[in-house]
């Protein structure tokens, strides 16, 4: 997860800020104007990084909100007197935020390639709208004759017409935007956004509604971009449809990547570097007139080289210098507390059917999983076990039938809605947030107890969550590895992490899809003991291939064959059931320990 910038970066940023502060005393008019432009673009670019690098939404239309902010300022500026910046800038931000809410509501429905294309298309739509119609100057653009000023009543506090005061105002806006976005990205809200970037499905399964989080992120980024647009329009007092253009959006992405995605400070460096490269390429005394004439050719070549050679951007240079974290930091054992018995949730399934294009994967299944028991579900490969789980957890919609959780009908609900009712699941293929540490994975899970997107304070509930995480990690035996990234865990440890996340999430009914896969005998023994222990305050539904383990652990067993329930009952009855022996258990039934 995003950390505050390390010391070397902080020093660099402070030095840059100091240089920016003294620039007007040494640089001429051109330098100040150039720096103002870079600063304003940097505001836009960090907001784009909030989308791309934090939430993982690659938007190719971010300039449209920049354009909306700029045009909003034009619309609120009177013909011959200055607009009051106290009103004009908030209105510009609001206009961009509303635009982002409308366009985002549609665009966020899509993912990946689609999202890129849809944002590009909507950006182009706004471009055409302002280009083809006459209501704001059309393709010629329009002028803001008098620059806005901050005024209270008739007293002017800050006149943005003055180049230097406007420069300092923009610098302040950049610092505030950066700190605001950094704070948001590190808040509980931002943690979920970061989770979406790496594993949206898991975020949904924890009970967060990914759509709402992505949309809010889109609106926030759009609003900040709108502020940048309004500032940009103030520089020259001129707006043109090109501000919406996809070329602007593309260049902004370029700056984000040049600087380093997902760092928020990197894109500021990217904006500076880009501006310097562009300026150098355009200046024929540096590069010769043939390059200066065709500078965008050189820019394209540099861009391609940068993508292929340094995909992590400038920020990547700082990361490499970091010392690797100690592999096994000392842990504090002995936090295990006795489980307080608590009623788990009851799950009832009635005539549940799920078909795929005529193939019936789950066929008229009726079952009851009573509270505080471990319920095993077994069956040969292809019996429909995973489809069954996916329908229960809301990943797939049932074709027919009912699913009730503590009497409430949940069939057909989305995964996050089901999760919010207290149904937690793990996946057959390990499904954690690989780039996050073990503790951060559990933190997201613990946070799911309060899945509202409007949680910004990390302090509220922090003690409760820390206790849950410590308990969960201790229970699965991962406490010593809390600060390791999940990607560095062995396969068995990742499975244990999944269980820890379920415990931390506060779910009362756990569906575990082959939790023992990839575990050695010792780990298996510990995890099965843990599952038994979990039934004190959970209902556990266990899908497993390890017959020894499941017969030892489960209170009831269900045998699924070809999507149907072949048998259901206590393990000893299932073992004796002739149909089960014939269809499935075979040799195992004779040798099983009594």
């Amino acid at each position: 997860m995003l950390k505050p910038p390390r010391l070397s970066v902080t020093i660099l940023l402070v030095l840059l800020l100091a240089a920016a502060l003294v620039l007007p005393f040494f640089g001429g008019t051109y330098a100040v104007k150039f720096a103002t432009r870079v600063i304003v673009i940097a505001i836009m670019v960090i907001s784009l990084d909030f989308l791309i690098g934090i939430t993982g939404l690659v938007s190719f239309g971010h300039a449209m909100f920049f354009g909306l902010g700029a045009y909003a300022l034009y619309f609120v500026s009177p013909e011959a007197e200055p607009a009051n910046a106290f009103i004009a800038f908030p209105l510009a931000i609001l206009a961009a935020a509303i635009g982002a809410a409308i366009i985002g509501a549609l665009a966020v429905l899509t993912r990946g390639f689609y999202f890129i294309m849809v944002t590009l298309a909507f950006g182009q739509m706004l471009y055409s709208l302002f280009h083809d119609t006459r209501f704001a100057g059309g393709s010629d653009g329009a002028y803001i004759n008098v620059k806005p000023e901050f005024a209270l009543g008739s007293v002017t506090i800050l006149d943005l017409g003055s180049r230097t005061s406007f420069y300092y105002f923009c610098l302040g806006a950049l610092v505030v935007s950066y700190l605001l976005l950094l704070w948001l990205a590190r808040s509980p809200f931002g943690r979920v956004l970061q989770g979406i970037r790496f594993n949206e499905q898991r975020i949904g399964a924890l009970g967060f509604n990914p759509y709402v989080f992505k949309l809010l992120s889109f609106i926030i980024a759009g609003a900040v971009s709108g502020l940048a647009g309004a500032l940009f329009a103030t520089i020259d007092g001129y707006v043109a449809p090109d501000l919406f253009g996809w070329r602007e959006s593309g260049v902004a992405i370029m700056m984000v990547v040049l600087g380093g995605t997902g760092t928020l400070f990197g894109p500021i460096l990217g904006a500076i570097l880009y501006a310097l490269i562009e300026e150098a390429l355009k200046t024929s005394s540096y590069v010769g007139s043939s390059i200066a004439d065709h500078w965008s050719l050189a820019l394209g070549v540099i861009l391609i080289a940068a993508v292929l050679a340094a995909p992590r951007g400038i920020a990547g240079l700082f990361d490499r210098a970091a010392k690797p974290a100690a592999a096994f930091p000392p842990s504090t054992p002995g936090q295990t507390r006795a489980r307080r018995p608590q009623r788990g949730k009851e799950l009832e399934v009635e005539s549940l059917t799920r078909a795929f294009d005529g193939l019936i994967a789950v066929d008229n299944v009726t079952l009851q999983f009573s509270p505080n028991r471990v319920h095993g579900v077994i069956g040969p490969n292809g019996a429909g076990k995973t489809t069954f789980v996916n329908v229960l957890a809301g990943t797939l919609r049932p074709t027919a039938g009912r699913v009730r959780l503590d009497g409430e009908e949940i069939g057909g609900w989305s995964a996050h809605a089901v999760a919010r009712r207290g149904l937690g699941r793990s996946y057959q293929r390990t499904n954690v947030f690989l780039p996050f540490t073990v503790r951060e994975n559990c933190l997201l899970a613990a946070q799911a107890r309060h899945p509202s997107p409007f949680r910004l304070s990390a302090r509220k509930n922090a003690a409760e969550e820390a206790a849950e995480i410590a308990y969960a990690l201790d229970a699965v035996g991962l406490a010593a590895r809390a600060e390791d990234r999940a990607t560095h865990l062995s396969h068995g440890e990742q499975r244990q992490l999944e269980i820890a996340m379920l415990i931390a999430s506060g779910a009362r009914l756990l569906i575990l899809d082959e939790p023992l896969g990839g575990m050695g005998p010792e780990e298996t023994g510990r995890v099965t003991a843990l599952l038994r222990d979990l039934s004190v305050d959970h209902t556990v539904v266990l899908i497993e291939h390890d017959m020894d383990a499941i017969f030892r652990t489960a209170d009831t067993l269900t045998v699924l064959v070809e999507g149907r329930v072949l048998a259901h009952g206590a393990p000893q009855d299932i073992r004796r059931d002739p149909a089960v022996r014939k269809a499935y258990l075979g040799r195992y039934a004779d040798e099983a320990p009594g």
Partner: protein
Amino acid sequence: MELVLVQILNGLQYGLLIFLAASGLTLVFGIMGIINLSHGSFYMLGAYLAVTLTSWLGDIFLALAAGIPLAFLFGAAIEWLFIRHLYGRDHLQQVLLTFGLILIFNELQRILWGTRPLSVPIPSYLSGSIRLTEVLSYPVYRLAIAGICVLLALGMMLVIQRTRVGQMIRAGESNREMVEVLGIDTRILFRFVFAAGVALAAAAGIIAAPVETVYPGIGERVLIISFVVVVIGGIGSIKGAFVGALLIGLADAFGKVFLPQFASVVVYALMAAVLVARPGGLFGRA
């Protein structure tokens, strides 16, 4: 009534042209997993090839015959030089590299052909109009455009349905991982698919050149419209691209008549409506 008929013809002809451009885009998405922003540049390449080749060879159809193989070779070279480095990389890097390609192509275009708008003559034997009704006539060359597009589309269908390469493309259309598992040499397949997509986009650019002005930003307009078509039709679906392109063609043609100021917005409104109803596109997998 006459106006409606003319707009239907215009819409279909425009839609067919866009289909040629969009089909390459959707195949490259579907089979290679690449988002190619520079696809519009290949339409532009076609348009400028039409200018040069027609002035050398004297006829737009000779230019088409010579231009398609040239564009195919150009596409294969671009795939070998740049695109193949992107397989398996994330979307962001694909977006950036192909955006870099646009900058390069646009600048090369400026160097080779300049910024002045150019035009290509309609061949004299197709310069007339056909009388459709008492009061209505329609340019022959525009009908020829539609005819050539249909021929090329049929040719593409034949390749996809009847050849071994087509078999791989169909396998890739439904399941990209499958192609890799089957042990097909994806390097050759990908190069062929990419080059074919380039050739189709260029073909569209060549035959459209006589009826539109050839100017520097020509490719970008086509790129964005092709994206809209792919979003409407569903990524990787040729059928979707066909239906989407005709819808867009008709929406654009009628938008120009009934909502002249908002003609370009009509197309995006159509896209928004499809997104709400089917976020995966009309013929999308999801």
